């Protein structure tokens, strides 16, 4: 205990620095270099404080997770100042997807349920942002995103109530029906949703003024746009990951894992099966809605047909490939998603396929579907599982 | 005749049977006795191919059984009435029997008539769902379903479990009669040692997966030590 005190002081000092840093930006956002320097300083201190205390993760897990998130977010934020507009766009899309993946990974891996309807929950969030922004353009960005999250949570609750009593295939089938029904729902309320054509965001929804000044005014408008959007998404992802890591290790999270492994035993020790299942479903839907809402911001518009059943499959594939139930797997899945289109077009050109041909246009689905089957059969914990296995093998070979 | 030689079975880290050897003579009833968890059920499941042993052999006459699949062993003529009877509740009495007679040579009608003669209670309820039968009737149905397949070996797992003493006595008598009439080789797993020993000619006592005694039923029934420590019979 005695040794902890100075170390946690370092940690607290680092957190203070974060606060100082953020408030200094708010107070005097001047040059891009200053910001990058601040980020680097802040990230370095946060990682230093994590490293300085070897048992921080054990003794103060929440603090450790907070510092960890700060480090990753800082690095990503700093990088957006150097990336091209295109890279920043991919980064933003991938980071938003990572949020969605985290939600499903939690639902499937921790709570043992499955959803094939997360594309529709994304769509709910995406439409919520667009509809709200079109009616109340002056609402702060954070509030608009929170409204999207709330809409997703409510939709999740509606569908999750029956889900509480359903297992595996029944639940999967019901969420599939929801995913299929989403387009019909959108088309039933055309005056609100814009039907298949979707909605544009009003021009008023741009970066908050204090943010805009952070960025190099010499950049092209697109670059400017994607950089701040990437930053917003990265921060949102950082917060989401931090909250999720805490949820997984909380009492509720432990109860869910107990339920997943043995529901009879869990009920005996007093865990409510229904409440736990519904909670997991709501969280997963809320995360999906946040991801969808961010996509609307990034694209400056929403196109409901994009949120079809096929997207649900992509989401499921990415979670499985990354590693079901793992936080790092969700992050990995986001990265894979951001680059999957480029990888597939690279494969197309390398193999000399006609890019307009049938095979090239189906390559995405075929590859993801095949990976889904192969990973589930031969490496059920995905890439993260493979890395862990490798790590264990190396660790067992090393002495000590 | 069933010959078991140095049979060992493990479920993960749990060793259920260790180096078990014994012989169940043709046309005889061999009782397998022992407390809960002694490995009696595992022994029967290994003989009928549901469990793969880690080592050892099981021979049915001159046929090696280990390595064959359960369905193949059943078709060779080894009938197994499992613990809890395994009657299919959703089936009618007659459907259960039809399932049993799937792979024998005797025509279905003749087989059915024979079983209904042996167990008249079943004949009266042939069209009823097995779920509606009493415990004793379910045991009869399970036996009849095994017998209609015309086995040469019959493995019985705790047939008396949950039955009233009077019903048990009747059942045991039926088993003994059948064994004599059909020249059946019976391996009878029982916790109720008194009842089992009364009709058996040979007995094997298992404790924690090992054979602790293997002798004539009368000798085992007289052994004070066995009676006290393994068979739960007061002297």
């Amino acid at each position, binding site marked *: 205990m005695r040794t902890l005190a100075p170390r946690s002081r370092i940690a607290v000092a680092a957190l203070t620095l974060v606060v100082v840093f953020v408030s200094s930006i708010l107070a005097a956002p001047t040059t891009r270099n200053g910001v990058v320097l601040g980020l680097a300083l802040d990230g370095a201190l946060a990682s230093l404080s994590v490293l300085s205390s070897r048992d921080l993760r054990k003794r103060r897990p929440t603090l450790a997770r907070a510092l960890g998130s700060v480090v990753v977010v800082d690095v990503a934020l700093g990088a957006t100042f150097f990336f091209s507009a295109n890279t920043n766009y991919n980064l933003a899309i991938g980071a938003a997807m990572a949020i969605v993946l985290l939600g499903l990974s939690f639902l499937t891996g921790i709570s043992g349920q499955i959803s094939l309807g997360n594309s529709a929950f994304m769509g709910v969030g995406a439409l919520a942002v667009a509809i709200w922004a079109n009616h109340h353009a002056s609402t702060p960005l954070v509030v608009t995103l929170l409204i999207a999250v709330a809409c997703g949570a409510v939709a999740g609750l509606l569908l999750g109530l029956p889900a509480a009593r359903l297992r595996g*295939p029944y639940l999967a089938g019901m969420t599939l029906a929801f995913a299929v029904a989403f387009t*019909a729902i959108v088309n039933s309320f055309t005056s609100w949703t814009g039907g298949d054509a979707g909605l544009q965001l009003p021009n008023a929804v741009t970066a908050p003024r204090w943010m805009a000044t952070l960025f190099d005014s010499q950049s092209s408008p697109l670059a400017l746009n994607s950089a701040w959007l990437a930053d917003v998404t990265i921060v949102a992802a950082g917060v989401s990951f931090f909250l999720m890591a805490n949820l997984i290790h909380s009492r509720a999270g432990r109860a869910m894992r107990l339920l997943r492994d043995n529901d009879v035993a869990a009920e005996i020790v007093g865990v409510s099966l229904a409440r736990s299942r519904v909670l997991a479903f709501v969280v997963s839907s809320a995360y999906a809605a946040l991801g969808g809402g961010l996509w609307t911001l990034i694209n400056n518009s929403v196109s409901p047909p994009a949120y079809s059943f096929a997207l649900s499959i992509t989401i499921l594939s990415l979670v499985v490939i990354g590693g079901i139930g793992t936080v790092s797997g969700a992050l990995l899945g986001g990265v894979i998603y951001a680059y999957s289109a480029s990888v597939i077009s690279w494969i197309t050109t390398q193999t000399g396929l006609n890019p307009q041909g049938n095979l090239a246009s*189906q390559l995405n689905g075929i590859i993801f579907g*095949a990976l889904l089957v192969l990973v589930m059969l031969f490496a059920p914990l995905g890439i993260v599982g493979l890395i862990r296995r490798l790590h264990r093998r190396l660790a067992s070979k090393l002495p000590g | 005749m069933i010959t078991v030689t140095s049979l060992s079975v493990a479920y993960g880290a749990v060793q259920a049977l260790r180096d078990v050897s014994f012989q169940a003579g043709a046309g005889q009833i061999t009782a397998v006795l022992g407390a809960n968890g002694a490995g009696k059920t595992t022994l029967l499941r290994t003989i009928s191919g549901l469990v793969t042993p880690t080592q050892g052999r099981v021979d049915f006459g001159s046929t090696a059984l280990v390595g064959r699949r359960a369905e193949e062993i059943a078709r060779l003529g080894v009938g197994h009435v499992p613990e809890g009877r395994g009657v299919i509740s959703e089936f009618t009495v007659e459907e259960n029997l039809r399932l049993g007679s*799937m792979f024998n040579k005797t025509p279905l009608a003749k087989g059915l008539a024979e079983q209904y003669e042996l167990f008249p209670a079943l004949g009266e309820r042939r069209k009823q769902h097995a779920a509606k039968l009493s415990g004793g009737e379910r045991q009869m149905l399970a036996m009849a379903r095994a017998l209609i397949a015309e086995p040469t070996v019959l493995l019985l797992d705790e047939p008396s479990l949950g039955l009233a003493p009077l019903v048990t006595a009747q059942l045991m008598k039926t088993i003994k009669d059948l064994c004599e009439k059909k020249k059946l080789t019976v391996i009878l797993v029982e916790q109720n040692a008194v009842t089992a020993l009364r009709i058996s000619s040979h007995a094997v006592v298992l404790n924690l997966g090992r054979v602790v005694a293997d002798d004539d039923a009368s000798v085992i029934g007289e052994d004070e030590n066995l009676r006290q420590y393994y068979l739960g019979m007061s002297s």
Partner: protein
Amino acid sequence: MDAFLTSRIMSDVLGGLTNGMIYGLVALSLVLIWRSAGILNFAAGAMPMVATYVGMVIFVSTLGYWPSVVIAIITGLTIGALTERVVVRRLYGKPPINPVVVMVGILIVLEGVAAAIWSTVPRGIPNPFSPIDWQLAGKPIALSSFSLYEIVTALVVMSAVAALFRFTKLGLQLRASALAPEVSRLLGVRVGRMLTLGWALSTGVGTITTVLVASNFFTGLTPQVMDGIFAFGFIAAAVGGLESPVGAIVSGVALGIVLQFVGDYINSNAIILVALVILVVSLMVRPNGIFTRNSARRV
């Protein structure tokens, strides 16, 4: 009488009956696998779809309609059996999520491969039945020789499956393997083979269904032709209870008729919405389905 037969209500009933038969068949094919393997086959539309392409696109122009149908069915049986042997066999005893994910993966791969080979452009399948509604006293009645072909085929398939299960030795073994696999093995039933057969049978039923759907002049064959129908078939199976073949068929037909009225009196967008509501409500009221007697659910 004539006026009644050509009335709006009657044409909704007849139109709904035709669709409902199709939903009932899909539901039946889902139940066949669910009962034996405890797996909901999400590729229950895609596997038959490939079989239908093989039969009805490759062979129809040279061999004609009926021989191509036979080829499609044989292909379907083979695809079902192979899937069980090669893939599904590795999934028994795994957490219930694993088969869901794998079957979804197979769905996507098959649809992708079919689109890569045959493109997504609908293919009409020439067949001997006219899609034009019959007339009664100058007014159309919602029946054509094609819809009658659909209804009769569905009834024949359903009766054949029922007869197989009820009256044959094979059916008895199939049912026994599903209800009590271990006991069945002890009685000499080759349970593994029964599972393979169950998948083959289910995909065979699915193939007949897909051939019917794709032969419809107004639909044609596309790689995703069964997607929506699968959703309705699943809803029917879940409402009826995945354990009960009769329940699956009855609720399939009922769903078809109800949804026809919804489409006619509200609009086509409302169809899937109402179906979803029916599913949610019925699952909340009776999670095991209307036609399932026992309350214990496997899995």
